[in-house]
C-alpha cells in the first residue's frame, strides 16, 4: 500500500506549503506572488522555503499594492502562467476587489471563452487570533455573489493540501479562503490519495436530529458542538461544505431530508451572508421536510470588534448549541 507511506501528520499551513511546492514542481507555469512571500515565507510561513528552492522568478515578492498584484497576475495568466496570489490578510483584499470583480471574474466570458484565467487567490481569513483591525474579516459572501469566481475553504490539513492542488489545476479563478486560526491544527495528509471533486461537500460527522452546515474554521466548532450535544443525547450531523461557490446543495439537502433541521454556522456577519443563501435554497428544496426554519449563527451586523471582544462576537460552542436548541424546540 503506497498510500500509507505518503501519509503524514501536518499542520494545515504546512499542508498548503507542501501543496504549493508540489504544484511548483509539477508545472513550470505555476507562480507564487504576494507581499513577503519570498525570503520571509509569508507572515504565516505558508510559502516558507519556496523562493529558496524555486527562485525569485517563480516565487515573487511584489510591491505593496493588491490591485497591482491581481492585475499583473491576470496579465501573467493571459501569457499562459498559473499565478497563485497571496493576499496577506482578509482585510487587505479590497484594493484588489475591482480587478477581481470586473476583470478576473468576467474575462473568460468577455472573451467568449477564448482566454482562461487560472488564477488562485489565497486569503488567510477569519478571526480568533487576537489580531488588530482588518486582520479577522470573513468576506467570502462578497466573492461568492460574483459570477465567474469560485470560492472554497478547507477545514483541515488534508483538504487544504488537496483542494489547493485542485484549485491550481482549475482553469477558473478560485478564491481560496484559508482558515487562519486553524493554520496550526495538525491533520493526517495523504499526498497520494485521490481526492473527490473540489466543490463537493463532505459529511464530517453523521447524525440524525439536526444538520449543522459550516466551512473553514467553523467546521471544528461544529464538530465540538456535535460532541457536546451528544452528551446531552442529541445526534447532530455536521456537513463540511468546503465550497461556497458553487455550493453542494445536494449533500445538504440529503442531510436535511434525514434530520429535518438545519443550522448554518459561519464567522461572517449573518446579514446577507452565505447562511442566507443556504437557508433560502434548502428551504425551497426541503420545504416539506423542514420541521423548523433554517437558523443561522454568525457574526453580528457591526464592524469586527477589537480582539478582546472577539470571543463574544464569534460563533462559539455555546451560540451554536443555543441555536440547535432553538431549532429543536420547533
Amino acid at each position, binding site marked *: 500500500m503506497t498510500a500509507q507511506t505518503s501519509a503524514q501528520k501536518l499542520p494545515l499551513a504546512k499542508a498548503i506549503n507542501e501543496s504549493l511546492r508540489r504544484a511548483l514542481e509539477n508545472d513550470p507555469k505555476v507562480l507564487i506572488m504576494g507581499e513577503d512571500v519570498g525570503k520571509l515565507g509569508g507572515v504565516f510561513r505558508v510559502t516558507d522555503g519556496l523562493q529558496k528552492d524555486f527562485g525569485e522568478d517563480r516565487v515573487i515578492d511584489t510591491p505593496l499594492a493588491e490591485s*497591482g498584484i491581481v492585475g499583473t497576475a491576470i496579465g*501573467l495568466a493571459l501569457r499562459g502562467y498559473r499565478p497563485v496570489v497571496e493576499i496577506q490578510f482578509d482585510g487587505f483584499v479590497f484594493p484588489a476587489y*475591482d480587478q477581481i470583480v470586473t476583470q478576473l471574474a468576467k474575462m473568460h466570458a468577455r472573451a467568449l471563452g477564448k482566454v*482562461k484565467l487560472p488564477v488562485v487567490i489565497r486569503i488567510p481569513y477569519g478571526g480568533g487570533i487576537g489580531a488588530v483591525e482588518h486582520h479577522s474579516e470573513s468576506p467570502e459572501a462578497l466573492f461568492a455573489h460574483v459570477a465567474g469566481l469560485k470560492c472554497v475553504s478547507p477545514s483541515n490539513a488534508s483538504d487544504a493540501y488537496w483542494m489547493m492542488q485542485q484549485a491550481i489545476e482549475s*482553469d477558473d479563478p478560485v478564491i481560496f479562503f484559508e482558515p487562519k486560526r486553524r493554520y496550526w491544527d495538525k491533520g493526517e495528509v495523504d499526498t497520494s490519495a485521490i481526492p473527490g471533486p473540489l466543490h463537493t461537500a463532505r459529511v464530517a460527522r453523521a447524525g440524525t436530529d439536526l444538520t449543522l452546515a459550516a466551512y473553514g474554521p467553523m467546521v471544528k466548532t461544529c464538530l465540538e458542538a456535535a460532541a457536546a450535544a451528544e452528551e446531552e443525547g442529541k445526534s447532530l450531523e455536521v456537513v463540511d461544505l468546503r465550497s461556497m461557490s458553487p455550493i453542494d446543495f445536494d449533500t445538504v439537502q440529503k442531510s436535511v431530508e434525514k434530520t429535518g433541521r438545519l443550522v448554518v454556522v459561519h464567522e461572517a456577519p449573518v446579514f446577507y451572508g452565505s447562511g442566507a443563501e443556504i437557508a433560502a435554497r434548502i428551504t425551497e428544496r426541503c420545504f416539506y421536510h423542514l420541521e423548523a426554519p433554517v437558523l443561522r449563527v454568525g457574526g453580528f451586523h457591526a464592524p469586527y470588534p477589537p480582539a478582546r471582544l472577539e470571543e463574544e462576537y464569534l460563533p462559539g460552542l455555546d451560540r451554536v448549541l443555543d441555536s440547535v436548541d432553538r431549532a429543536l424546540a420547533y
Partner: protein
Amino acid sequence: MTVESTAARDEARRSSGKRTTAKTPAKSAKPTAAKKTAARKTARASAKASGGADQPQLVQLLTPEGERVEHPEYSIDLTADELRGLYRDMVLTRRFDAEATSLQRQGELGLWASLLGQEAAQIGSGRALRDDDYVFPTYREHGVAWCRGVDPSNLLGMFRGVNNGGWDPNTNNFHLYTIVIGSQALHATGYAMGVAKDGADSAVIAYFGDGASSQGDVAEAFTFSAVYNAPVVFFCQNNQWAISEPTEKQSRVPIYQRAQGYGFPGVRVDGNDVLACLAVTRAALAHARSGQGPMLVEAFTYRMGAHTTSDDPTRYRTDDERAAWEAKDPILRLRTYLEKQGLADEEFFAALETESEELGLTVREKIRTMPDPDTMAIFENAYADGHALVDEERAQFAEYLATFADSAHQEGN
C-alpha cells in the same frame, strides 16, 4: 503594412525568439529621457492653467503644414510605399469609424466611441509593433485593431450589444477592449512580466487616455513595470478630454513627466503626426525589447468628436477649439506631404477612395447580418470548468422557456 498583409493571420503570435539584447539598433534603442522640467511652484490660480501656452516640446517629424522636419533624437526613413501605407491605414480607419458612427445613428449600434482625430496616434503606434508584440487597448483603439488585422466588423459586436468582445485575443495578439478605465495597464504589465520570464524579446503596449492617468491602477502598473523592468510601453493618447473634463482635471503637468518619478523615460509626441508616433513608439518598443524596461509615450492629440455617440460636447467645449485642431488634422498633413513630394498620384487617391467606400459597404453589410446571440448564450463561458449552479439555472431556464414554446405550440395546434 496594410491590413490585408496582417488580417489573414490565424496562428497564435507568441514568439519563441529569445531576447537578444545586443541586437538592438543603436539609434532607435536610445530614446531620450523626458525633458527635465523643474517641478513648478504653482500658485493656486496658475494650477488651473495648463495644457495651453507653456506646452513642452513635442517630438514632431511632420508639421501640420505637411513639412518634414528632423528631430535630434528620433528619426525615421520610410519608403514611398510605407508612407502611402500609413496614409491608407488612416483613411480607411477614419472611414470605418465614420461608418460605425452612422450605423449607431441608424440604430444598428447601441453606442460608438469614435477615434476621429486620433488616427495618427493609433496607426503610428500600431504600425510600430511586431507581430509577436501584444496590445492591451481601451475601447477606442479601432486604428490599432486595424493594424493588428482584427476584422473591423468584429469590433462592432460589443457596441451592438451582441457580445462583450468578439475576437480571439491570441489570434492577433490584440486583447479585448477594456472599459474599466486603467485596468488594462496592469494586465499589460503582467503579460510583459511573463514575456520576460519566457526570455522572449517581444514587447507589450498598453493604451490608455489622459483621464485614465489618474487611476491608481495605472500608477501601480508604472510601479510594477519599473520594479520588474517589464518590457511594456505605456501609450497614453492625451486627447485632452475625459468625457467633459479637460486634462487640467487630471494633472497640472504634462502627463509624460509622470514616468520620470517612477524611474523610466517619458516622452511627448505630436499625436497627430503619424511619422513621429511611429518613430517614437518604435524606439520605445526597442527600449523594452532590449531589457531596459518600461517607457511612457504621451501622444498629444485631440478628440475631434463626442466622447461617444451618447455624449453632447456642446455642453462643455467650444467649436473654436475643434476648429483649431482641424488645422492639425493627421490625415491632411500626410496627404499634403505625399502630394508635395510627389509620392502619391491621383490614381492612388482615387483607388483609396473606392477602397474606402467598399470598406464602408462591407462593414454595413456585416453588421446588418450580424446575428443576435442565442438566448442560452447567457450561460455560456461564465466558467471554463463549469459551475453546478450555472448548470442548474441553465436547465431551469430552458424548461421555463419551453413552457412558452409549448403554449405557443398548443395554441398553434
